[in-house]
């Protein structure tokens, strides 16, 4: 894991301070280390990296002041969003990294998971259609709900926004921060 990242050389897992648009780029500002400086993860779309993303997200959420009782939710939600992005990339853009932006705001811990593939259910070859074939009994008979990852996210996270664009998609999530910066 390094701070430097070349756009044309994909490292397996790369974390850097600063935003996607270069916020906080350059040398990390030690005065911002406790908050306000986004952390960006860029990783090859491999399943083994999803756990790392979950661990980083929970560590940052805890430090940001997210309530302990919500950390499991952060862990699951970030895992679901990253798994979905990894699945999309592996099917359509295996050379393109998944990007996760974690932003320790003053009142909200925000996470963005960015994929470079247009929306749609994530292909799961072995289990594809399994839930649907169980019919309405499972609640997955509707195409819109066939993506279990999104179903979990929608049921789990109150502060959730799913945006699909021509160039990909972004899942934005947020959790309240209970410890204000000014008392840390």
């Amino acid at each position, binding site marked *: 894991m390094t701070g430097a990242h070349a756009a044309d050389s994909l490292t397996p897992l790369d974390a850097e301070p600063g935003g996607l648009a270069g916020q906080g780029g350059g040398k990390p500002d030690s005065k911002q280390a406790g908050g306000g400086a986004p952390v960006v993860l860029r990783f090859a779309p491999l399943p083994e990296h999803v756990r790392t993303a979950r661990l980083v997200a929970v560590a940052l959420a805890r430090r940001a002041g997210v309530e302990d009782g919500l950390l499991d939710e952060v862990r699951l939600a970030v895992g679901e969003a990253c798994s979905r992005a990894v699945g999309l990339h592996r099917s359509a853009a295996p050379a393109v990294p998944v990007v996760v932006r974690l932003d320790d705001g003053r009142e909200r811990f925000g996470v963005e998971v960015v994929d470079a593939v247009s929306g749609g259910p994530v292909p799961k070859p072995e289990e594809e259609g399994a839930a649907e074939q*169980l019919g309405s009994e499972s609640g997955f008979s509707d195409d819109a709900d066939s993506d279990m990852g999104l179903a979990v996210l929608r049921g789990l996270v109150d502060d959730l926004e799913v945006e699909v664009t021509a160039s990909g998609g972004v899942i934005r999530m947020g959790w309240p921060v209970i410890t204000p910066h000014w008392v840390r």
Partner: protein
Amino acid sequence: MDLNLSTRHEGDRTVIEVGGEIDVYTAPKLREQLVDLVNQGRYHLVVDMEAVDFLDSTGLGVLVGGLKRVRAHDGSLRLVCTQERILKIFRITGLTKVFPIHTTVEDAIAATD
């Protein structure tokens, strides 16, 4: 944390003890285990999830796939789980209506329908 699996047979029932994290990386290992058991003619499965630390939708998909396979042989797939954080995921997805969920392995083994 990786995924730990162990199986034992109790009459015509097979208990699969699962420990660790079931996610997009480890779920194929569980899928392979369930498929192997069905291929061996074991159609009544009890998945003990008491030692599972993490479960996501990929893991749910594998369990649904396992259920589908045993149902094709008039079999059953029962879960043992008392952990609220795991049960919550089944509730969110409506899968509590699909899987029989028991509080002990003994109950799951004794259940007939």
